[in-house]
């Protein structure tokens, strides 16, 4: 009897404790896939840092809305215009304050840009600016001129990537990010959790979520289990296998495009017919709903369909093994060494089933007569094959990779992937270089048209690579909150967008 009572008591204590690790009413817990070891605002374009920092702690001058398709919106800048060629004038909010109580002004913007671009710190932002140099001039407390050399027509869009810190922030990476956002960082237990708390003196509308705790779990089933057990509210990334509850699980385009980069300088890949044959050999439909989730979309460009200038007229190469064989035979007759073994280079853990997907592709290539070999590398080794300078003495390579662009403009992809000097370009085509330069320099309709033309040219005329799929990710959301993951969830998670049911 005594034993029974003890057991009952223990169980009651346990269930009381269980409710203690469930959530407080307006507090939420977000479970991320890896430890966030830096919360430096200038690194906020890195996805997990962005999910914590971007627009929650640190805001940007402008904001790109992909959720409601509103395009570029004001944030810390109320409006902007091109004051003179290459120079943009931003009119700043007057009522914003940093979480340390100091007022936000043009000096902070100046310092933030200089800091992010400094060579004394390795921020992420400069990569979006390429060779563009920025100069800032404070006009008055609430007005700043930013001059880009060469002129940058999408400078206001690029400003969505520069987080604003107070002018007093030192150049080195900070561990105490101060921002103008609706939340401030209140606790950071290294390796365990990061907590943001709602600010009372935020300039905008007060969000519903009062406190957000971010925890890190490497195992996808544990992340899913945490939401199921009520210990967490959002797991932005779970595996397709764990996404088995229609009430809690969402699939969303994760802005990644999976493709195989072809090295056009090495035979037989220097022959267009061979590149076409590779594209025709693949039964893309066979992957969707089997090795890859149902929501994956066949790709015709390296950027997802939500991007400016995306071209709906470009059609995916049809699955045509006979046609591929014919093209290969023609190429062979012209002396192209089509029997040279081609190495497919993949990255381990790039996405679920990556090995199986590449093995299936390999099988399809071999069925039409290619000789292939599959080589999987971990990320550092893979990187050596993926970025220039490419290894000396390499044979023909198909480098299978994912490229992420949720930024709304192909400029973040096209130079790197297709310009002759692009670090991950497999081609050197003066016509392509010219088209990239033109589209990059253009604005409005002309810019969209430029990208549209380039997308068609790369796909149909150059047959630059084997484009495969726009991928989907899976997220689990606790039914007590009202939040739908979108393509933006891959890089930010605005707490102010979360409501309670």
């Amino acid at each position, binding site marked *: 009897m005594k034993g029974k009572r003890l057991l009952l008591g223990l169980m009651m204590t*346990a269930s009381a404790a269980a409710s203690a690790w469930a959530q407080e009413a307006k507090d939420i817990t977000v479970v991320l896939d890896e430890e966030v070891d830096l919360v430096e605002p200038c690194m906020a374009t890195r996805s997990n840092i962005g999910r914590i920092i971007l627009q929650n702690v640190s805001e940007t001058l402008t904001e790109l809305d992909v959720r409601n398709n509103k395009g570029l919106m004001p944030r810390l800048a109320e409006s902007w215009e091109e004051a003179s060629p290459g120079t943009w004038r931003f009119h700043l909010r007057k009522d914003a304050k940093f979480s340390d109580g100091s007022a936000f002004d043009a000096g902070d913007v100046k310092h933030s840009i200089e800091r992010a671009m400094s060579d004394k710190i390795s921020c992420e932002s400069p*990569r979006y600016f390429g060779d563009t140099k920025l100069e800032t001039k404070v006009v008055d407390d609430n007005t700043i001129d930013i001059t880009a050399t060469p002129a940058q027509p999408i400078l206001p869009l690029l400003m969505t990537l520069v987080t604003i810190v107070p002018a007093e922030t030192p150049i080195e990476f900070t561990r105490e990010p101060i921002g103008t956002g609706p939340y401030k960082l209140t606790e950071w237990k290294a390796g365990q959790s990061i907590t943001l708390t709602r600010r009372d003196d935020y300039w905008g509308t007060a969000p519903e979520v009062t406190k957000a705790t971010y925890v890190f779990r490497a195992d996808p*089933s544990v992340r899913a289990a945490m939401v199921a057990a009520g*210990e967490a509210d959002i797991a932005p990334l779970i595996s397709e296998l764990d996404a088995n509850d229609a009430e809690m699980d969402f699939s969303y385009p994760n802005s990644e495009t999976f493709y195989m980069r072809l090295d056009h300088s090495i035979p037989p890949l220097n022959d267009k017919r061979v590149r076409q044959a590779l594209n025709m050999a693949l039964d893309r439909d066979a992957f969707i709903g089997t090795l890859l989730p149902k929501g994956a979309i066949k790709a015709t460009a390296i950027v997802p369909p939500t991007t400016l200038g995306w071209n709906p007229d470009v059609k995916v190469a049809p699955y045509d093994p006979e046609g591929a064989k014919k093209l290969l035979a023609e190429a062979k007759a012209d002396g192209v060494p089509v029997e040279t073994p081609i190495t497919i280079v993949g990255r381990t853990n790039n996405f679920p089933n990556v090995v199986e997907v590449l093995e299936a592709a390999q099988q399809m290539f071999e069925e039409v007569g290619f000789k292939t070999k599959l080589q999987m590398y971990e990320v550092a080794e893979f990187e050596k094959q993926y970025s220039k300078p490419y290894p000396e003495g390499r044979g023909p390579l198909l480098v299978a990779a994912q490229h992420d662009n949720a930024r709304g403009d192909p400029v973040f992809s096209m130079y790197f992937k297709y310009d002759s000097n692009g670090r991950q370009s497999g081609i050197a085509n003066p016509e392509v270089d010219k088209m990239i330069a033109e589209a990059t320099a253009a604005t409005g309709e002309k810019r969209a048209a430029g990208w549209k033309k380039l997308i068609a040219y790369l796909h149909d005329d150059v047959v630059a690579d084997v484009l495969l799929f726009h991928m989907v990710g899976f997220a689990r959301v606790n039914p007590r909150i009202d939040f739908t993951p979108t393509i933006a969830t891959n890089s930010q998670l605005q707490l102010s967008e979360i409501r309670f049911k």
Partner: protein
Amino acid sequence: MGKKMMRRVVSSFFSLVALVVMVFFLSRLTGDPAALFLPIDATQEMLDQFRELHGLNDPLIQQFGRYVWDVLHLDFGDSIRKARPAIEVVLESFTWTLQLALITIALVTALAITIGSVAAFRPGGLFDRFVSLVSLIGASAPDFWIAIVGIVVFSITLGWVPTSGTGTVWHWILPVAVLFIRPFGLILQVVRGSMLTAFGSAYVKTARAKGVGNRSIIFVHTLRNAMLPVITVVGDQAAAMLNGAVVVETIFGFPGVGKLMIDSILQRDFNVILAAIMVTAIAIFVMNLLIDIAYALLDPRLRT
């Protein structure tokens, strides 16, 4: 005894130095942290800047010289990833690992000795057969599987303990339980075997003939002699745990040194790798020293 210990300390110091030198050069051969820290489309200029900033452009031997000089001044460098002192990062994680290892090994040892001794007392009996089967299953089941099943059963279905993380005493139950299983099976088998041998030995027979009671035979006469092989296995298991329990740490989101070490290797965060190796090597060395002392205490022949 003192002389022997001193010799041990000196030889361990040289092993540690050799280990650090080896790891320093081997880790630097594995690749460039710049390519991993910076985004995949970073420009060459950004890569060069990063290498310059972290002294990776200097010749290897110069980097090594600087490292040794800094370590002699107790500066273990900064973590590239975390932008804070590497030793601080490592000690933080190591504290977690140490707690996890101490709790688990204490539980394992206490339970394995008790149950193993009882099982050995009547070899082939029902209890003995049951214990052997359970320990065999325990020693062979994979950690990650037990961990996931544990979460599904005890966290999701029953809601008794949290799935993962740290914070309350309840958070320790699943990780300790998972970590417990394998060494428990192993140590229990050693205790049982060792006790069986002891029970069959001449001095136990003599004691029995003299009419000494069972309890006294187990706890006074046998246990002490049977403990020597057990201490060796407990020591091995504890050393393995001090090195970090990667699977358990990864699944339960426990910020231990095992996961830190694996992550740092994958990220080529050299200073953290080196600091972690130094800290765990010293811990394992101290543990071995404690085992030597325990040996000496139990076996007077070793106290010379």
